[in-house]
């Protein structure tokens, strides 16, 4: 499903943020990515979404080589990938409903479907009542859950979640993580970047650990790796 071959990404001269990473994730896998602050986890997520292009190496997702993808195809590719951004990236001037609906509009779902699907997903993340609020009228955790709802609403084949529980209390975090597990069980490939040691340790999934842009360990049914 996802293959990285000798992928490096340098923002400027000096130490690359992602350094010669080779990695394969199968369809339907659930992977935790852990690592220090600044070790290149978010950069990897951005590479997979083709928000950034690698300085060297090849990224293949679903048989498509991202490096060579034509400009016209990028939008279509991204529609198959659900992303929770570390900084949420909600549309500030639209309310919760419109933020989530936007992902559906982009794939030209008819209004009828949108009207049914969006409230469903908002209920799933516990925000059904807040559908009319603008992002700046939400608490940090609520914004994070809107971002998650938007990533889920299209039932994407791949879900990339960058720190999806950083602003959530432990109970909420566990619930959200169980939701991701459930989605994964229905066939979605899930990559979760997290700092939450408790969660990583209790879910016993594949854990990829990064340090200074390099993968330092990759364990099936692993725990949180302390560097």
């Amino acid at each position: 499903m996802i293959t990285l071959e000798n992928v490096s990404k340098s923002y400027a001269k000096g130490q690359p943020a992602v350094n010669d990473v080779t990695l394969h994730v199968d369809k339907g896998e659930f992977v935790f990515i852990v690592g220090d602050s600044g070790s290149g986890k978010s950069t990897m997520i951005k590479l997979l979404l083709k928000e950034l292009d690698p300085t060297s190496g090849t990224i293949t997702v679903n048989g498509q080589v991202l490096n060579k993808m034509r400009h016209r195809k990028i939008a279509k590719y991204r529609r198959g990938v659900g992303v929770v951004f570390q900084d949420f990236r909600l549309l500030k001037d639209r309310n919760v409903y419109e933020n989530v609906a936007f992902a559906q509009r982009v794939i030209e779902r008819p209004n009828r479907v949108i009207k049914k699907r969006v409230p469903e997903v908002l209920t799933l993340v516990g925000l059904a009542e807040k559908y009319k609020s603008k992002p700046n009228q939400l608490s940090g955790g609520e914004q994070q859950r809107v971002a998650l709802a938007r990533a889920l609403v299209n039932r994407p084949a791949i879900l990339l979640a960058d720190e999806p529980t950083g602003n959530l209390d432990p109970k909420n975090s566990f619930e959200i993580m169980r939701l991701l597990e459930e989605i994964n069980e229905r066939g979605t490939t899930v990559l979760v970047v997290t700092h939450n040691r408790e969660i990583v340790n209790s879910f016993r999934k594949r854990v990829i650990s990064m340090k200074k842009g390099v993968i330092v360990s990759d364990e099936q049914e692993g725990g949180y790796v302390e560097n």
Partner: protein
Amino acid sequence: MLRISTIGYTIKQGFKNIWTNKMFSLASIATMGACIFLFGLIFSVFVNFQYIVRTAEEGVAITVFFTDDADQARIDEIGNEIRGRSEVTQCNFVSAEDAWNSFKEDYFEGDASVAEGFQNDNPLANSANYEVFVDKVESQGELVSYIESLEGVRKVNQSEAATKTLSTVNRLIAYVSVVIIGILLIVAVFLISNTVSMGIAIRKEEIGIMKLIGATDFFVRSPFLIEGVIIGLIGSAIPLGALYFMYNKVIQYVLEKFHMLNSLIQFLPVKQVFESLLPIGLVLGMGIGLVGSVITIHKHLRV
């Protein structure tokens, strides 16, 4: 290829953009409005100037003199023939006495003593004539040839110098108006492009987010296009409306302030000016809005 719901969404989003960024939209509309207002103002002024010059041109008469053997009957006949021409608006007989009197008025400025010497000896005995006015200066040449071919006509004077001067002034005014309006248009496109740029700058983040979620260029762009067109239309409609209602007031004010102009010049009626100004203004506004946003979107939305 496009779903109806998508088109609906796009149009709705265009309007919503305008509403959400009220202040920014207002600024755009105001910029546009200011440009179109100035355009309309200068357009009106110059259309009127042209009209005034035209009217003045028409006031330039052809003078028809008669041969010595033409008697009053023949002169009347010539008058009728001239009046029969469709391009002739007026044809006045000026007797030799009239000519002399008007000459005395003009030249001696009522200084009777100088003129007294000629008292019984009109020096312009030979100068009875018709003053002929035509509807268009262009018709003048043909008319002159025709009149010259009439029997009993000694000479036809067309005051070439005056005509030339006026048409030069006319051309000069046309040039100046074209230059000023041209500059204004460039300024307008420039300002609008800047305004749209800023609008996009304000929403750069939002646009980036949309693209990351999988929105196509077209999907992201089209609301901006529609926004540009709407702003262009509103931004031209308002100043045109304002001009429409100001027009008569201003003319009235000018005529009041400068009584002496009353007899000299005549302004175009507002209806006639707006017959061309309204469509030109609206299309211009819409065009500027569209061009402004197309250029800017193309420049800034390559995310």
